[in-house]
């Protein structure tokens, strides 16, 4: 019943240059970094990627074990990908265990794949760990703005995300409260087979839905009362501004990307 301990959006509060970067820089930076990971095909280039991410992590002051927690749910996927690549890549035979064949290329590909996945997860976790969910949606809204011309409701999408994120903790609290109240009335959420468990959820879900609708109604009323009418002509309380820090980050990223692309096309490393 440790619902409160589940971290979602998992922002790690700290004072660091990475935290203070403009969310737009961080979102674009993360996307660029992820794309770059798929261009990388040598260990030396990987070393460069690891160096960059390692520096960002060190500067951000987020403890490594916090970031590593994000690996847990995908660990099986990583191991599976490694195994498949290890045994099913054709090439120079090194070892054979019955139908399973280990090739030199297989080892390389398995290692690359695992590294790539780990870096992808670490990279994207860094974005959510150093950016508040609200800043994140603000950043996304700004980045989607140009697409409004072709009918993409950027503001509405961002507002939906903001509200959803904002109410996750509220609904978690609510779930925790209702669960405790029903437990105090002798409800049992843990034992029994699948059907019994599903039935035991009714006393939890009904009040939760009632609460969710009540909260939604209250919020809609509060927004109406403050004359909310969508994104048209809306200004912000904390406008996003690029600073010199963002320029520096963009420059580092551009350099990194250039090196990666050059090394791939020219086969430098």
């Amino acid at each position, binding site marked *: 019943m440790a619902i409160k301990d589940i971290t979602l959006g998992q922002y790690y509060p700290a004072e660091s240059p990475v935290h203070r970067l403009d969310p737009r820089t961080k979102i674009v930076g993360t996307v660029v970094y992820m794309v770059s990971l798929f261009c990388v095909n040598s260990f030396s280039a990987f070393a460069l990627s690891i160096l960059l991410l390692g520096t960002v992590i060190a500067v951000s002051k987020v403890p490594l074990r916090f970031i590593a927690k994000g690996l847990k749910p995908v660990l099986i996927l990583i191991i599976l990908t490694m195994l498949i690549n290890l045994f099913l890549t054709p090439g120079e035979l090194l070892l054979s265990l019955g139908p399973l064949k280990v090739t030199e290329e297989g080892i390389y590909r398995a290692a690359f794949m695992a590294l790539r996945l780990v870096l992808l997860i670490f990279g994207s976790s860094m974005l959510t760990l150093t950016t508040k969910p609200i800043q994140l949606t603000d950043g996304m809204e700004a980045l989607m703005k140009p697409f409004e011309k072709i009918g993409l409701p950027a503001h509405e999408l961002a507002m939906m995300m903001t509200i959803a994120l904002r109410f996750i903790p509220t609904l978690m609290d*609510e779930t925790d409260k*209702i669960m*405790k109240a*029903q437990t*105090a*009335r*002798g409800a049992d959420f843990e034992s029994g087979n699948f059907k019994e468990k599903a039935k035991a959820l009714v*006393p939890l879900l009904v009040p939760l839905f*009632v609460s969710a609708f009540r909260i939604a109604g209250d919020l809609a009323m509060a927004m109406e009362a403050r004359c909310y009418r969508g994104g048209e002509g809306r200004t912000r309380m904390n406008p996003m501004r690029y600073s010199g820090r963002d320029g520096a980050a963009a420059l580092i990223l551009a350099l990194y990307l250039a090196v990666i692309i050059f090394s791939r096309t020219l086969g430098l490393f």
Partner: protein
Amino acid sequence: MQLKVEKLTHIYSEGLPFESLAMTDVSFTMEQGEFAALIGHTGSGKSTLIQHINGLLKPTSGHVYLDGVDVNEKSPEARALRRRIGLVFQYPEYQLFEETVLKDVCFGPKNLGLSEEEAEEVSREALALVGITGEKLERSPFNLSGGEKRRVAIAGVLAMDPELLILDEPTAGLDPRGHAEILDAVRRIREKKNMSIIMVSHNMDDVASLADRVLVLEDGRLIMDGSPREIFARGEELRAIGLEIPSAKDFMEKLAKMPALKEKGLEIDDGAITIDEAQEEILKLFGSKA
């Protein structure tokens, strides 16, 4: 049953950056039949304390004993004892879920293993105790007034026939009528059942008129424990931690300081904490004058 809390300490999110100390070294004992009020500023640890009593929260250190058995033991004995605690949370009406009032109240007793008929019988009794009778039993709980919903939720816990009833701010957010109805229900429960009751409250008038013991929490520590008269005599200390004293007591204190009374050489005891006691004091004053 006897409740004994011993050196209870609780830390939320221990080991994380957001770790916070919610409860420090709280100890007290409560005997069967006592009515204790738990008061304290918002965030002083009242809800944390009561959730420890039926084992919903586990202490970081210290123990909670019911009739000498640690509630956090894994034995069937401790499990049975935990079920003797009836906990009514804040805004309990949000836990209602069934189609009819009666069915909702039956949820608890049925979980205790009672048959359909037995459950209905105890549920009707519990509903009558909180003043919900007649056709309301077949209505949807969602169509009742706020005060009624709350009384149904309280009945849902009462129907499990607890020996210790814990009420977490049972009157919060109700209109004066709903408030009075809840208090009446609490009084009836007190009279008809030999239950120990712990009531968390911010309303000092309610505390003064109902409780026979007051526990004061501040910043996770139990700083005062005594009869309402003793506790409310320490008005200055209570105000210093953001609490109040009953309005009758406040009135009597102000009255006692009136220069007009002093000039006439009249003295008044400002110890009264309820309106009845204040009335008696004032009548005495008239008596002495006559």
